[in-house]
């Protein structure tokens, strides 16, 4: 056993120790390497639990190697493990060895959105009857407040279909030739995280609503995207529990029924 470091050396020793915990090649004296192994293993397990579909797409060995690269470059900044992994999707954008799996980063975005939804604040969701009760001539001034757990991931890839089959099916179902870009809505009705498909352009609708714009303005921004459908978008948003408040006019009030 090595003698404990002198008190005046402790600070220097700790910073060397902390730095070498995350670096693969760092030389660690005596039995300290066991701590590095534990740190790296626990962080990569946390990422594997958070990004199960990414892991399935590239395989466990590749995932582990990829996770360790990420851990070295972006070690946790917070002691809360549940907050770790926010930068993983962005890291995958530039991770050359995985470039072949072009949709990997978007799948990671979707899985991170699910993780955030799982931990988001609870609020009651409104049903679409609240919207149909508004007089038709006042509809364009309707402002919708999103549920704290709701978010949208728009992708150039069929990200909802890829996620769905890899998350639920023992055997991955091949996607048809027609599979194109998809827009995913993540919500948490009844405390279950749900992934739904929204029409193309709905990300613009949701972003405009989140900025506090009225429904007419939000629809106008989304309608410039080919394939956008107002009725389908509103139906999916309300049905999935994405809307938590509704007000008419410029005054924006939270209504939690």
């Amino acid at each position, binding site marked *: 056993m090595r003698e404990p470091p002198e008190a005046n050396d402790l600070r220097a020793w700790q910073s060397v120790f902390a730095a070498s915990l995350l670096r693969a090649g760092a030389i660690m004296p005596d039995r300290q390497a066991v701590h590095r192994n534990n740190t790296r293993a626990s962080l990569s397990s946390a990422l594997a639990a958070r990004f199960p579909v990414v892991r399935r797409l590239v395989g466990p060995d590749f995932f582990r190697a990829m996770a360790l690269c990420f851990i070295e470059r972006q070690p946790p900044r917070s002691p809360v493990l549940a907050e770790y992994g926010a930068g993983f999707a962005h890291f995958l954008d530039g991770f050359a060895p995985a470039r072949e799996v072009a949709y990997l980063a978007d799948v990671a975005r979707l899985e991170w959105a699910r993780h955030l939804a*799982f*931990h988001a604040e*609870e609020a009651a*969701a409104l*049903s*679409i*009857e609240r*919207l*149909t009760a*508004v007089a*038709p*001539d006042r*509809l*364009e001034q309707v402002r919708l407040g999103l549920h704290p757990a709701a978010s949208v991931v728009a992708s150039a890839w069929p990200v909802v279909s890829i996620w769905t089959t890899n998350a639920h099916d023992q055997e991955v179902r091949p996607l048809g030739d027609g599979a194109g870009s998809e827009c995913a809505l993540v919500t948490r*009705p*009844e*405390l*279950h*995280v*749900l992934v739904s498909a929204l029409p193309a352009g709905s990300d613009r609708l949701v972003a405009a609503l989140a900025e506090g714009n009225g*429904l*007419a303005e939000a*629809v106008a921004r989304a309608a410039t995207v080919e394939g956008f459908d*107002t*009725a*389908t*978008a*509103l*139906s999916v948003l*309300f*049905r*999935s*529990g994405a809307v938590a408040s509704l007000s008419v006019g410029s005054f924006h009030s939270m209504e939690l029924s």
Partner: protein
Amino acid sequence: MTVRSTHLALAAAVAAASLMSAGAGAQTANADKEKCFGIAMAGKNDCAATGNNSCAGQTKADYDAKAWKYVAKGTCASMEVTLKDGMKRKGTLMPM
């Protein structure tokens, strides 16, 4: 588009959205469900009576008496699980 036709287009879309939602079974309504305690497998609970708000899927043990799962209304008391020690127990509407 004139102001008038924007009105109409939006009203029509809302009406259509409402029709699509009808019958789709609002996933946000739980009028036909009840919270059933003591029947959820480890990691399969909907929530628990232990005051944890990020609770879904967080139980560590099978049939945790404080963890609940949504079931169809009226069916909780008829659910029976076999505990590790071989004892049988029914679901309850309150934490045990």
